[in-house]
């Protein structure tokens, strides 16, 4: 079982006690990258990108709105992916990853809604309209909340892991269904009264700023999730010797 080939392979990072130090080493790098990219993106967004011809300055919300919207959708997919891996391979780290992702995904989902609402008021005249895209984003937020509430409500971590994985997968099957149904519902009812206008004014600098901010959001997510997963690993593996050693080291560090 302990064949050297296997422990040298990449797969060995699926073991929490190998992953823990690795995550600790990597996270600060991602955090730094996030910071640098954010500054760069904001500079691009506020000082390089020109004023939009039709919308004026409000459009500058786009530099967080779109990355946040992208992240919120992608994070859910990643969550579902880890859940599936966890159910099939029965690796605890996968469940930990999917649960560590959820709060960040929900946060971005909320940010997308919030910034979209604030953007909507000056452009559409209302904070909220029941447009298909907005609505499916709202439902996505509920899916996140459901996942988080369920995993929090169950105390036994093994049960929480698997129950959460099931609901994440069921939700993932439903995301496209929701998306299309909502689209159809909306077009049936009110036609294309609302559409996001983008193409004409989308200068390359804008696009660039948006992309930089999107990558920054990625980096931020990875850093935060790694940190969160570290705490969860300690919690789950508290009975093991290596966690004991880690704790002793921390205790000494704390006293020094």
């Amino acid at each position: 079982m302990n064949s050297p080939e296997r422990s040298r392979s990449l797969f060995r990072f699926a073991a929490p006690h190998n992953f823990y130090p690795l995550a600790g080493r990597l996270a600060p790098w991602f955090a730094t990258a996030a910071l640098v990219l954010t500054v760069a993106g904001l500079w691009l967004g506020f000082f390089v990108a020109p004023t939009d011809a039709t919308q004026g300055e409000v459009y500058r919300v786009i530099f967080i709105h779109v990355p946040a919207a992208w992240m919120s959708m992608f994070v859910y997919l990643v969550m579902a992916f880890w859940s599936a891996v966890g159910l099939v391979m029965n690796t605890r780290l996968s469940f930990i990853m999917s649960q560590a992702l959820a709060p960040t995904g929900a946060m971005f989902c909320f940010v997308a809604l919030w910034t979209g609402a604030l953007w909507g008021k000056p452009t559409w005249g209302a904070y909220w309209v029941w447009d298909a895209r907005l609505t499916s984003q709202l439902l996505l937020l509920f899916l996140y909340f459901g996942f988080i509430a369920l995993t929090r409500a169950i105390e036994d971590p093994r049960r929480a892991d698997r129950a959460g994985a099931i609901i994440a997968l069921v939700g993932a099957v439903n995301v496209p269904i929701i998306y299309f149904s909502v689209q159809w519902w909306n077009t049936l009812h009110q036609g294309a009264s609302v559409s996001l206008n983008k193409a004409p004014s989308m200068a390359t600098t804008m696009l660039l700023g948006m992309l930089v901010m999107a990558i920054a959001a990625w980096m931020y997510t990875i850093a935060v999730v790694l940190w969160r997963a570290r705490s969860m690993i300690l919690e789950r593996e508290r009975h093991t010797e290596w966690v004991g050693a880690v704790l002793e080291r921390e205790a000494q560090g704390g006293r020094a």
Partner: protein
Amino acid sequence: MQWESWSAFWNMGGAAYFVWGSYGVTFALMALELVLVLRRRKDTITRLLRWRRAVGKDSARGSAKEGGTPVPAMESET
């Protein structure tokens, strides 16, 4: 540069409320999340240390041997 003055920048062409409302909340949330995540680590460590003292290292370690894990590489240490 886009802006004639800092006040023009803060004014955002009259959309200050919407733009800064968006950015403000976003960064506040991210900062909050970071703080929570880092504090959670500290909490976890103090709590687990207290727990280890309470249950005694013996039983905490004892289960490590039994702590069968579905991940093969796990048992390789020691």
